[in-house]
């Protein structure tokens, strides 16, 4: 007999990392072996409170624990932010289709991200650098409101930038103090010379407005809609293509996504909202 689709796997929060004033990473350990592919998402249950979808931010190769980076954005996330180490949680999933990493082999991987959108991107980044020689290059262009709003600062500002084959540029909407990087929205640090477009894929994940203008910029550079991978944030609830909340056109984002090519979703209404 199949497992009850709605039964969460029990687990607990073993560590909490403050990433930015509004974002925390929760390290969770589950009572069962749990494997996911990068870009897939999980439903996280806060017992008695509710459930919400998140894409793990840790490497899928780490099967002992999983990290989930969460921005305080609504009721459930505010309560999660109030949690302490030892808090019991539940996980359902993993759900959906993640990034087709095998299709990226031999190509420039152009990653554009902003805000908490760096959470799924971190998982992808760790997956790519695990065998960096398989990819032509990994070019990252990330934005945040202020330098303090960047998440994963320890690695982002330091060790990630030193990896051979990785090129990272950062920008902020505004900065005070000693920020010597770019100021402006993420599209201001994109250049058509960043990658060899005919042999590249682009990955975009961030706030809706950034996803929209990032995608438009890529199209302007000459990327085809099939080359652009978007991680869609919708109201995924059941996770198994039934409850209907996350529908974008004919797609159930939870089952057919959350990663789509722009080509797949471009014809449907309100994809950026």
């Amino acid at each position: 007999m199949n497992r009850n689709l709605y039964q969460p796997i029990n687990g607990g929060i073993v560590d909490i990392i403050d990433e930015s004033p509004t974002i925390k990473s929760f390290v969770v350990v589950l009572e069962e072996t749990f494997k996911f592919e990068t870009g897939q998402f999980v439903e996280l249950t806060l017992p008695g409170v509710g459930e919400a979808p998140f894409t793990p931010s840790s490497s899928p190769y780490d099967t002992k624990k999983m990290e989930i980076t969460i921005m305080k954005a609504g009721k459930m996330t505010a309560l999660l932010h109030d949690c302490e180490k030892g808090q019991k949680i539940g996980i359902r999933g993993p759900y959906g289709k993640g990034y087709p990493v095998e299709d990226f082999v031999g190509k420039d991987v152009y990653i554009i991200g902003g805000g908490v959108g760096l959470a799924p991107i971190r998982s992808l980044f760790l997956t790519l650098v695990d065998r960096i020689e398989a990819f032509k290059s990994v070019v990252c262009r990330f934005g945040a409101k202020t330098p303090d709003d960047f998440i994963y600062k320890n690695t982002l500002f330091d060790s990630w930038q030193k990896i051979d084959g990785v090129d990272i540029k950062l920008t902020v909407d505004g900065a005070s103090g000693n920020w010597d990087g770019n100021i402006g929205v993420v599209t201001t640090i994109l250049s058509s010379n960043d990658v060899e477009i005919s042999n590249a894929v682009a990955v975009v994940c961030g706030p809706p407005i950034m996803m929209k203008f990032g995608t438009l910029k890529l199209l302007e550079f000459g990327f085809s809609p099939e080359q652009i991978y978007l991680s869609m944030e919708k109201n995924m609830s059941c996770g198994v293509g039934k409850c209907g909340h996350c529908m974008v056109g004919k797609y159930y984002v939870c089952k057919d996504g959350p990663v789509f090519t722009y080509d797949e979703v471009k014809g449907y209404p309100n994809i950026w909202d």
Partner: protein
Amino acid sequence: MQTVLISELKPFLDALAEEMDLYVPKKSGEHYVYNRYDSSANVQIEFNNIRTCMPVKEFLFPLRELAAVYPQPIEPKEIRPFAVFGLKYCDLRSIEVLDRVFAEDEFEDLLYVTRRKNMFIISSDCSEPAESCFCDVLGGKPFAQAGFDLNVSQVKNQYIIETGSQRGEEFIEKHSSLFTETTEAILADRDKNRIETQNQLEQNNTNLKFDVPVNEMVEKTQDSDVYDEEAKTCVECQGCTRVCPTCHCFYLYDTKQEDYFTKMKMWDSCMRIAYAEVAGGTNPRKALGNRLRHRFMHKFSYFFERYGIDMCVGCGRCVDGEAGDVDIRRVLKRLSEELKGKDNRRAETAK
């Protein structure tokens, strides 16, 4: 497939009720509703001329149910075999829609599948279509063609029972003493009744004959302003989705009990404003017109593309069951007219 004859329903229903929980239609005001059959009570057995007021999905996908208990899971509640008498072909077609969603191999919903396996379906012919019935427009008929265990047709004061499954055959064989044989003449009478009802239905809906398949028509007019205009008559009661036998959106929520937690599964509605809203308040379908558009696109285009059947069976419950004035038939008619206009303009330009 075999047919047998019985002159009154009570012995037949009593035999069913002996083996399983039986639900039968009962008139309540203008409508029929389902009640548990009690063989000892001396109530009049009613043969419903049309579908019941509430949809059959209630039996398979209740308004609210326990989906999971955690952290310590519990064994699922045992579902007793049950039978539903008097379902119409539109009801059977709606079960087909629900099967596609909840009983698909990849993610089988055990809550649904367990009930479905334990359900014994006794359909019956429609004899008097309601004003709102328009199943014929969507490929339906006023009598069941498939998907039943037994089907009952009333012919004058007698009832023809037809088997539609192995389980149905077994039931008839087991209770063979209750039945007599059908004759050519009575079967001919049944077919005549069926044709008459079908003709009446088609006559009621002559203004709903479309030149192109409905799914194609809805898809081609997806940008239509008709949705925004029709939305003005919608009062957001969500009644249309509640009474709809194919609507299956649901909502999961958690509760805290003394020493455990639960996940509950409850009907939801895509017409509700916060339905698609994400944390932080972004909402792709904030405008009521967009929600109505999505509802129609889901029913006639998206679902069709995914599963190959429409997610509307033309039962007309939404027409009867809502507080506002959005009539699914009028919307389809307006879309059809708009498409004709579009095609005419295109033809003009081509000249």
